[in-house]
């Protein structure tokens, strides 16, 4: 049973997502969907006193790619500063996912990152500009 795209890891994460759930209270929380696909992801983020990510949880539904991506992303950003989060590149997330994605699926893969950035930019900090968007 081999698939180019659906490596064991993706399926594992789809079945047993990492950091799945809610954080209450949290410092910011953001949800967005990809209406064209019906994928939806919500992130709750808690910061420590240095504005580093102390904890993060996500909920959502959608295809295996969007869901596995949320697991991988949340795992990766723990301990990062808000600035590091804002600088987190699309390429880095796609590398984490590690399978070749077609254009149509890149959107699925990047949904969680979009949600994360929108949330992070929502946290006011001095001299902040509007972030890169999709």
């Amino acid at each position, binding site marked *: 049973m081999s698939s180019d*795209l659906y490596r064991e890891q993706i399926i594992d994460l789809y079945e047993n997502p990492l950091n799945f759930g809610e954080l209450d209270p949290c410092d910011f929380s953001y949800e967005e969907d990809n209406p064209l*696909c019906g994928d939806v992801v919500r992130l709750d983020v808690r910061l420590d006193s240095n504005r580093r990510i102390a904890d993060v949880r996500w909920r959502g539904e959608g295809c*295996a*790619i969007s869901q596995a991506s949320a697991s991988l992303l949340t795992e990766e950003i723990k301990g990062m500063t808000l600035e590091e989060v804002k600088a987190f590149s699309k390429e880095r997330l796609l590398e984490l996912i590690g399978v070749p994605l077609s254009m149509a699926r890149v959107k*699925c893969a990047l949904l969680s990152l979009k949600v994360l950035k929108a949330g992070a930019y929502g946290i006011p900090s001095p001299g902040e500009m509007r972030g890169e968007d999709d």
Partner: protein
Amino acid sequence: MFDVMTVRADFPILERETRPGVPLVYLDSAASSQKPYQVIEAMDDYYRRYHSNVHRGIHELSEAATFAYEGARVRVARFINAPESDQVIYVRNATEGINLVAYSWGRSNIGAGDEILLTEMEHHANLVPWQILAEEKGATIRYLPFNENGTLDLAALPALLTERTKVFSFTAMSNVFGTVTPLRTLIDAAHSAGAIAVVDAAQCVAHLPVDVQELNCDFLVFSGHKMCGPTGIGILYGRRSLLEAMPPFLGGGDMIRRVTLEGSSWNDLPWKFEAGTPSIADAIGLGVAVDYLTGLGMEAVHEHEQFIVNYALEALSEVEGVRLLGPPATQRGGVAAFTLSGIHPHDIAQILDEEGIAIRAGHHCAMPLHQKLQIPASARASFYMYTTIEEVDKLVEGLARTKRIFRT
């Protein structure tokens, strides 16, 4: 006699492999059909031999192009049995056809408090133009519900069609359920209530014999690319009295009789609605597509699709976890949409694609339908006269593989 292998030989793309050793299994014809070589070559020939702008050109090429362009219109008119070919207006696609009606007829006939009746299973093409119109004019949209099995709830119709209803616009065949709607019943009901009837035949003209005079509809739209024709061309058929009374939609060359700095007057039908240089090659291609379909016979096309969809519904229903959307085969065209428990339609489509099997996954431009079903998306296999039983078998095998990958 209809022979699917003979038909397939007309479609160059069906010979192709998506990767070495993996033949294409194209089950996405409801999104857009493939093209027989006759259509492809006709357009090629046009550009190589007689391309020119149409109308009013006095030279040989322009004559030839105009002749072919207008000749295609006559063939399309005959195909849907329009009383006259000048009631057949070239548009880009079904979507533009509905927008033309909503802009030109709608802006002059819909006012505050008026009602527009649609159904809950419309394609966005038959929702959004009316929503924009209703918002602009202060009109109200009502929706005829569908039943659990994807048929229309006709019992609800009388209460929804009132003297306030000015237009009832509905699909002739759902692009998700595949449901063939009772056109005559709906059209007659609209007329009894004093409303006009607009038929979104995007999924229907390609698959079933259509006779606009027998239907007695007021407008009917469809797209060339779903019926063996090229992209970039579609048709709006309209009742003469309505078309004549309507103001033009787009302004420019060809749609005018006379232009002065003070104002303009309009050309005759159909050109009143065709501004600017038209999609000449695409229109010619559509004419050939219509000939191709006529050659096969729409009854034969429909029969083959019935055979395939019947087989597909049975085969799919045996796959554990599959939930089929829509009515039994007898009430539908060649469309089979479904969900597979625990696996998102995107993932299904992606895994099938690895085997060269092309299906569609998503909301198929029918979000409200999916909202009502409370599913974010569905997977859809759709068939045409070139689809084989073997291809359906491959789909079913592909689903089995998908389930194994997903360990369900």
